[in-house]
């Protein structure tokens, strides 16, 4: 009989304990976040969508090389001497036209490896995670801000300049070679005249071979 009362008392006690807990939660705050209207702030260093501040990019290609899944494609064209691309906000001089800077977010695995090598801190992750697409190709983000016409122009100019520089270099080399020849001939004459030093002769013949 005593056992029955004891058990009964325990039952009632546990029921009221449980109801006390539930009523406390009833009046307590809710943990629900009304998602599309309210959003949780992403923690610092959260890995999400990649963004490139193209104005600061110097086209060094380090991020593309660091990428383990090859989702970054960079194409650079050397700037010609007549244009000055200015400096980045970190003070590095810009020497390349960025004709293509594509990041394929469908391939990206959010490893963060591309962010750290960047010398100008221009590639980083932004707290944005709502960018799903129906077409997979829409996930390729183009960061280059050059117009196609501009790209063609820049490429042409760069090629011309490269051609010109090549020619100039060749010209220079030929002149140097000629100058050396003349010098040697002059030396030989001198040596013939003086019966001079043979060691000097060998020394000057070595760079000659490298040039050719």
């Amino acid at each position, binding site marked *: 009989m005593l056992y029955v009362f004891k058990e*009964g008392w325990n039952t009632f006690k546990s*029921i009221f304990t449980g109801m006390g807990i*539930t009523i406390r*939660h*009833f*009046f307590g705050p*809710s943990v629900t976040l009304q998602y599309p209207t309210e959003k949780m702030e992403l923690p610092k260093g959260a890995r999400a969508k990649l963004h490139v501040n193209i104005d600061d990019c110097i086209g060094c290609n380090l991020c593309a090389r660091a990428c383990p899944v090859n989702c970054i494609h960079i194409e650079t064209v050397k700037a010609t001497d007549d244009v000055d691309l200015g400096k980045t906000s970190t003070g590095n001089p810009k020497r390349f036209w960025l004709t293509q800077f594509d990041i394929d977010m469908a391939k990206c695995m959010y490893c963060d490896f591309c962010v750290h090598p960047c010398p100008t801190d221009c590639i980083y992750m932004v707290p944005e995670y709502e960018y799903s697409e129906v077409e997979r190709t829409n996930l390729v983000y183009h960061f280059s801000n050059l117009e196609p016409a501009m790209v063609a122009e820049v490429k042409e100019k760069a090629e011309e300049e490269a051609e010109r520089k090549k020619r100039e270099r060749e010209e220079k080399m030929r002149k140097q070679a000629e100058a050396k020849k003349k010098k040697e001939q002059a030396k030989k004459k001198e040596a013939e005249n003086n019966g001079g030093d043979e060691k000097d002769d060998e020394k000057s013949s070595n760079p000659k071979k490298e040039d050719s």
Partner: protein
Amino acid sequence: MIHFAANTTYTLPILVHAAIPLTLILVYALVAIWGERKVAGFIQDRLGPMRVGGWHGWAQSIADLLKLLQKEDIVPHNASRFLFKFAPFMMFAASYAAFAVIPFSSAYIGSNINIGVFYLLAVTSLLTLSIIMAAWASNNKWSLLGGMRSAAQMVSYEVPTIATVLTVIVVAGSLNLMTVTEMQAGNDTLGFLPNWLIFQNPFLIVAFGIFFVSILAEAHRVPFDLPESESELVAGYQTEYSGIRWAMFMLAEYADMLLLSLLGAVLFFGGWNSPFGDFMGGPVWGFFWFMLKGLLLVFVMMWIRWTLPRYRVDQLMHICWSILIPLSFINLVLVALWEVIF
């Protein structure tokens, strides 16, 4: 009563009187289903429905109702067609008919008959019948199991319900719910408490406890929701129902819950009497107090639902037959003795 129906001059008043509780039930069901989801949400630290209708998703149940109305009315191939289609309406009729004797305020009662409580308990017994009808007609073993459980449960729990109602009747001396309410008017108990029956006799507090547990079982509420038990019987007798017929079951269930809560409010908490004596009295305030008391009991039922787990069938029967029934009869005798002595 019979000559009422034959005489056409009474047809309109009868329809109006019948429409008042119906409107109340329909509005209440919409609010209560939304409220139940809100209560569940808040207890589980969620928010519940928030989108439909703007403020806290108040139109959620209306949207659900519209969805249910549009659904296809499916009858299983081997089901007993007539019984299958008829059962939900019978179930709703049973709980709706019982509202006739509930005194909503001092000015309104559907039918002021002198056997009110008896009529109410008799009519709600039809619920068992309609549940078995739905279960058996579905031709589904889980439905039938649910229906059988329901029959056993309701037949068993009617005994302690009636025994506790009888304790109140012993004190009140009337089966008419209007009379029972009227005799609870005033604020004289111990000088300040209302003259509600629960304050008048210590044994009536025990009676209310038993009554509340029994109506939980009668209304198929957790922890006694074995006929439905969605986690084991796939909603029991409702399994094969869809669309508007399922909505009728839902409506009947919520109506039954309100009915039993209101009965509890009449029997133990003074019905439409204001807790402040004559202050805030009158028919309109009476309706307000009555609904407030009923809805508070409904809230406690919801609160219990989201707190306690479900009982096993044998535990359910054990609670009823070896605890509640003896206790309620002993209590009846004690209340009777108290009434004789004091």
